[in-house]
Structure formats: C-alpha cells, structure tokens
C-alpha cells in the first residue's frame, strides 16, 4: 500500500512491520512523532515515554535481552544522556534486535547544538544506517533489525530534521513476526565486570571486521553510473539535494554510514577523474576516506555549519568547477524585514515568572523547554541555557562563587525536572546551596507538543499512570523551603521569589498553572483596553503577550495606545495587574460611554 508518510511515521511503520514489541524514548524535536505514531496507530507495539533518554535506552536493553525486538528514540543531544548504556551495550550485544534512532538537528531548528551523531556510531563501533527519504526510513528500519540480530549488535538509525519531518510516498508492507527468542542466562555476555568486558571488547572488534565485509557487499551502499567522469559520494538528505541539482553526475550513495565500504569507495574513486564528498555537518565520510589514503574533497566547497540545501549543494558544485551554472533567485530579497521569533503563548503561565525575574535583575540559569523563550526581548530574563537539567547545577556553582551580586535563581520545567533536575536539586541539598529553584510546572512536556510525563498521570498509550508527586520528591530530597504559587498573581510571584532568595539553604518554588494549550485549551473571558484611560506608557507591550498590539490611537507624545485581540486573550489578568492607569478591564465590565 502507498502512503504519504513523514520519516518519523515511516520509522514507526517499519518498526511495526519488523515485529517490534517495545519502544521507548523521551520527547525531543525532531524525534518525537516516532513514538506518538506507534502509540496512535500501531497499538500492538508497547510504547512508552521514559523520564529521560538514558532510562529509555535501558528499558530497550532490557526488552532486547529479554528476547524482544526493541526500538529506542531520541534527539541527537538525547544520546549524550544515553551514551553510558549505549557504549557498553555495544560490548554485550543483543538478544532481540535493538535499534536506536538518533534524530539530529542540523541548523538547530529546535536545539542547543548541531552535533553530528554519526561520530557516536563510530565511537561505539556500532553499525549505522542513514536513510535519505521516508521510503528508505521504513526500509532501513526493517533492515536494521535483521542486521542487529545477524551481527548481535545494537544498530543506530540516524535521521536528521529533513528526514524526520519531510513527507514522501512510502510503499508499505505487512507486519511480520520477529524470531521467537526468550531470555537465556548468559552472564559472560551481559554482566560487564572487567573479566567479561575484556572478552566482549575482543568480540566487538571481531564483529566490526565482519561488518566491514558486510558493508562492502550490501546494496545499501550503491553506485549509480550516469557516464560522468565526476563522482559524488553522499548520503542522507544530501544525496537528494545533489541528485536534484546535478542529476547527470555519477553517485556513490551511502546507506550504511558506518562502517564505510572503503574498498568499494576506492574503486569508485579510481574509476573517476574527480570525486567530491557531499555530506551535511562534519567531514565524517571525507576524513575516513582521506585517512584510508584516497584523494577526495568536499568540506572546502560545501561547508560544515548548518543545513545543506539544494542551493548550497549547487553553489558548492559550482565553486568546485563541476557545475557551470546555479539557479539564482530571480526576485530580490526584502532586506528590511522584522523578525518573528517564537514567543510564549497568550496566557502562558511562565510569563508572570519572567516578568518578576526581569524586575529583580537576578542571574537566571535556565533550562530546556518553552520557558527558554524567556531569553527573547522584550522579556530578556534568562542568562544561561546549556542542556537538560543544567539550570540547577549551574545555579549552585554560580551561587557558590557569588557570581551575581543580586543572587541566582534556577528555572526549570516539570518534564525537565523529572528528566535530570532531581539530581541537581539533590546536590543543592547535599552541598548546602542557597540557590532558589523555580519549577514552572505546567503539567506537560509542552515545547515538543504536550507529551505525558511522570507527573501527568497518563502514559504515552493513554492509560492511567502512576503519578510522581513533585512536592513529595522535593521534600523527600530534604528541601525545607518549599512553596507553591499561582503564577498569574504577579505581586505574590515577585515577593515570594524575594523571600526565598533571602533564606539560607535551597528553596523550591513551584508554579501550579497548567499549560494553556494542553491537554485542553484554556480560554477565560478576555480583557479589553479602555482607550480613554490608556496613556500609551507601553508597560503591557513589554510583557511580550501576542494578544496585545499597538492600536491606531496615540498619546500626546505619539506613542501608540494598546489594543487586545479578544480572540487570543485567555484572560490571564497579568497585563491588567501591571497597567498603571487601570485601563485594562474585563470585557463584561467595560462600559463604553
């Protein structure tokens, strides 16, 4: 059957067809929809969100050793968190097939870095497949399970944003039963004490040699001859870009990116006058081919920062003297355009917290989530954002060295707190930190689309779930100063943060309003602006609410008065609380004279 599927949906489909029994992951753009698709459409696969990628990976390991085919999904930086089990699982190998999906984000559309996780496959010495579109995403997922079981190894399927989030026509097949396996006690294989691990390291080295033979034979690595003297070595979405702009060249398409088929590549190089490597991000293929003693070029023409595109590949080919002409824009770009960055939604419960933090002028260590948007003007209320959970640890360090005269506050979301904030808070208790931690608990993994987590009471598959109580966790860790508050109550937010910062020992403040979008859209009665009372002071513009705009009316100094878009306003009241002339009133209370 033919279906229009995204790369992520195609991986889910492939996993279903391959007879996967268990899938686990942590939400992260661009990987999230793989598990969501499984949970919605392929309910015979047990799928779950774990609190973080490391746990998800370990859940997958358990399923594999237990005999079932397992899928583990995460974004590229998630593999940093899961690197510990990943590196050693490469030693033990699998029982049921095990596939790790790493969804990288070149260009950092929704990420803090654009690390190239192909290096992780080489680091762990596990085979890696790189689909170039949705059809291949489905096909390679199935192949990955066969490889995993044949070679007794975890397999990495490496996607990028343009593979995960592009849709294409996919020919699907029927689901199959995976080979029947059960758990067999085998401590020499699975218990990595030094004596066993030394043996397994040798097994890993031997396995890699077998994979080096396999990669030379597999049709995943294919030559396409078009009679050109110039050859292109490429893989992933870069293959599609190159084919688009230079269909007449010869291609060596890499589908198995690690280990590379060096002999086959050498033959390709020898049979062409010139060979270029077109790959996104780092010179992963290029460096290995050069290290094997072959003369290729690539990065000097195509660059290693950000995403490639058909245009960038064409420009690179022109620079290399391979293409004489590059299609250029026929219409000039509009230079003087305003930016339109993402913003906190109207009624977002994080807004009041950032208004207060901005006013206090304290150092704010941030984390990963919607609230990272607090860095943007006009809020400008975030000072750091490094990785999941980093807010608390870095606040402790900054507070210890008195880096900020006005003090340090850490801000972290609920899902991120579960992911890796708990250990940071443990450190704050253990090491007598005076840090103040604000947990902005909106009861959703909001930035990635409102996924469930240990504090929501629901599983990925929609069942009722065990509920982890943040208050009990915080108190259980030994935090004595713990308060909950309504983030819509601006004065209270401000005074509570001040009080808790003045206390000795760690303090935790938890905000209690749910996300306005999820799980249900919250729309209370909107507010309106009384233009007679509005003096155009623009205080409400500075809270960065998308529902507040400049009206056509101005004050005597020519500054615009405010207007509220009633279809966007959720009635959160924050703007009304800070309006000095009380010009912002509930719609039903506003009487036009």
């Amino acid at each position: 059957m033919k279906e229009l599927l995204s790369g992520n949906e195609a991986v889910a489909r492939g996993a279903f067809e391959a007879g996967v029994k268990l899938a686990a992951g942590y939400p992260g753009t661009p990987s999230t929809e793989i598990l969501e698709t499984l949970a919605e459409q392929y309910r015979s696969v047990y799928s779950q969100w774990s609190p973080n990628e490391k746990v998800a990976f370990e859940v997958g390991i358990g399923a594999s050793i237990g005999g079932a085919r397992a899928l583990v999904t995460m974004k590229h930086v998630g593999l940093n968190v899961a690197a510990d089990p990943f590196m050693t699982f490469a030693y033990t190998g699998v029982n049921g097939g095990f596939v790790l999906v790493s969804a990288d984000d070149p260009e950092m559309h929704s990420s803090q870095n654009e690390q190239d996780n192909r290096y992780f496959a080489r680091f762990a010495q596990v085979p890696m497949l790189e689909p170039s579109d949705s059809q291949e995403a489905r096909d390679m997922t199935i192949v990955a399970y066969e490889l995993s079981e044949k070679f007794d190894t975890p397999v990495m399927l490496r996607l990028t944003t343009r593979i995960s989030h592009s849709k294409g026509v996919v020919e699907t097949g029927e689901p199959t039963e995976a080979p029947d396996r059960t758990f067999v006690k085998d401590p020499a294989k699975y218990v990595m004490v030094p004596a066993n691990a030394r043996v397994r390291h040798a097994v890993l080295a031997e396995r890699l040699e077998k994979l080096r033979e396999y990669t030379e034979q597999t049709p995943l690595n294919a030559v396409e001859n078009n009679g050109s003297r110039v050859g292109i070595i490429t893989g992933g979405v870069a293959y599609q870009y190159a084919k688009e702009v230079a269909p007449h060249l010869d291609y060596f398409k890499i589908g198995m990116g690690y280990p590379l088929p060096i002999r086959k590549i050498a033959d390709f190089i020898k049979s062409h006058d010139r060979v270029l490597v077109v790959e996104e991000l780092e010179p992963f293929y290029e460096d290995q081919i050069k290290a094997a003693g072959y003369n290729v070029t690539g990065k000097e023409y195509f660059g290693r920062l950000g995403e490639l595109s058909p245009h960038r590949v064409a420009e690179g080919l022109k620079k290399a003297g391979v293409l004489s002409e590059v299609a250029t824009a026929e219409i000039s770009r509009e230079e003087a355009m305003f930016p339109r960055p993402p913003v906190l939604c109207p009624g977002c419960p994080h807004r009041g917290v950032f208004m207060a933090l901005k006013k206090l002028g304290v150092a704010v260590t941030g984390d990963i989530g919607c609230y990272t948007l607090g860095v943007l003007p006009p809020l400008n209320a975030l000072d750091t954002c490094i990785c999941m959970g980093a807010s608390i640890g870095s606040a402790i360090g900054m507070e210890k060295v008195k880096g900020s005269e006005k003090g340090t506050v850490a801000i972290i979301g609920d899902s991120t707190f579960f992911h890796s904030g708990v250990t940071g808070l443990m450190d704050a208790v253990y090491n007598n930190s005076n840090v103040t931690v604000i947990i902005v608990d909106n009861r959703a993994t909001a930035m990635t689309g409102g996924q469930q987590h240990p504090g929501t009471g629901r599983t990925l598959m929609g069942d009722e779930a065990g509920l982890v109580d943040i208050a009990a966790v915080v108190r259980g860790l030994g935090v004595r100063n713990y308060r909950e508050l309504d983030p819509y109550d601006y004065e209270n937010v401000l005074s509570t943060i001040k009080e808790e910062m003045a206390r000795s020992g760690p303090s935790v403040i938890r905000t209690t309003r749910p996300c306005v979008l999820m799980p249900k859209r919250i729309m209370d009665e909107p507010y309106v602006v009384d233009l007679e009372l509005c003096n155009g002071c623009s205080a409400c513009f500075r809270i960065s609410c998308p529902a507040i705009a400049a009206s056509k009316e101005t004050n005597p100094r020519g500054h615009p008065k405010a207007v509220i878009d009633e279809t966007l306003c959720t009635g959160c009241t924050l703007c009304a609380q800070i309006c000095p002339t009380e010009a912002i009133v509930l719609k039903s209370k506003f009487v036009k004279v």
Partner: protein
Amino acid sequence: MTDKDRYSVLIVGVGGQGVLLASEILSQVAMNAGLDVKKSEVHGMAQRGGVVSSHVRLGPKVCSPTIEYGQADAVLAFEQAEGLRAIDWMKKDGVAIVSTTTLVPAIVTSSKQFKYPEDPVAEMKKKAEHVIDVPADKIAGELGNPRLVNTILLGILSNHLPFEEALWVETIKSKIKAKLVEINLAAFKRGREIKLTSVGA
C-alpha cells in the same frame, strides 16, 4: 507542470494558521493523482507564534524535499508580511497568492527597532508579476470561521494545478474533522472562484 516536470509550492504563515494542514492536503491530492510528492517543514520552536513554512514538491519523480532557493512555482502566504518575506523564493513568472491578513508580533509592538512594512502586498507586486491578494481572513469571517484562510487559499491555488475538483473535495473530506468538512468545502469553493484573471487589474 513546469520545466523538469516538477512543481514547487512554498506555503508560509504564522504558527496556528494551518500551514501544515494546507500542505498536507495539497500533497495528498498530488499523491492521489498518481504523482510523486515530497514535502518538508520544520516543527518545534517555530510553532510558538513564529514563522511556519512548508515546502511541497510534486512531479513524476521528486528528489529534494525542499525547494531550490528562488525556484518555487507558487507561494501561498497566509499573512501578508510573511508573503513579502518569502517572495524571493519564487520564480519571476511564479504566482503568489497572499491573504491580506496582518499579524504584528510583540517584538515589533514593543520596540522601535523593528517596523511592520507599510503595505507588504504593494511591495510584493513591485517585485513579482503575478500576485493575487485576497482578504481571506475577511472572507473566512463571512463564512463563519476565521480559521479558513488556508482552505480559501488552497482553492485559489487549485486553479493553477491540473487536478480535478473532485479529487480536492475527496481529500479535504478525508483530512478534516467531520464537523468542519462542510465549511471547509465552502471555503475551498470560494477560493476556487477567484481566478488569476480577476486579479491585479
């Protein structure tokens, strides 16, 4: 279909305007018509009121899921400044279909540094020959749901593509929630009545 037998549509708007649904419908129509299709968009951060864009490419065989810069055959813009922002992606003889919807972001309202263009559609018309501007937000309001801008613009675009109306109707029915199908079909038909010839004077 144009040169290389491929047709590329860039759909742009602001988070929440239904860019992704529109590109989904267009892609499905093309696939149902027997063509190869690829489409690409970026999810995540962009959907918090930021710019959302979707590339759709149709033809007998499509390689890249994204459009080559400057090579879009059509630009569909649900907000007029976003239409202006994207116009350089279009070929000189391409067609831009733009809703005169105006959405001014907080960053413009709160600072003197940035300005919303005086008349984005006029700027677009200076740059490109075929610009169809439609008050789609007003039409949507008349039809009874402000969220119909995407379907109205798809209706206009449908005049430029070789697919039967029945195929569009069938696809809209399959992609939209049952209770919203009727109003979306009405919106699509309103759009389809707007032909290139009726525009620009």
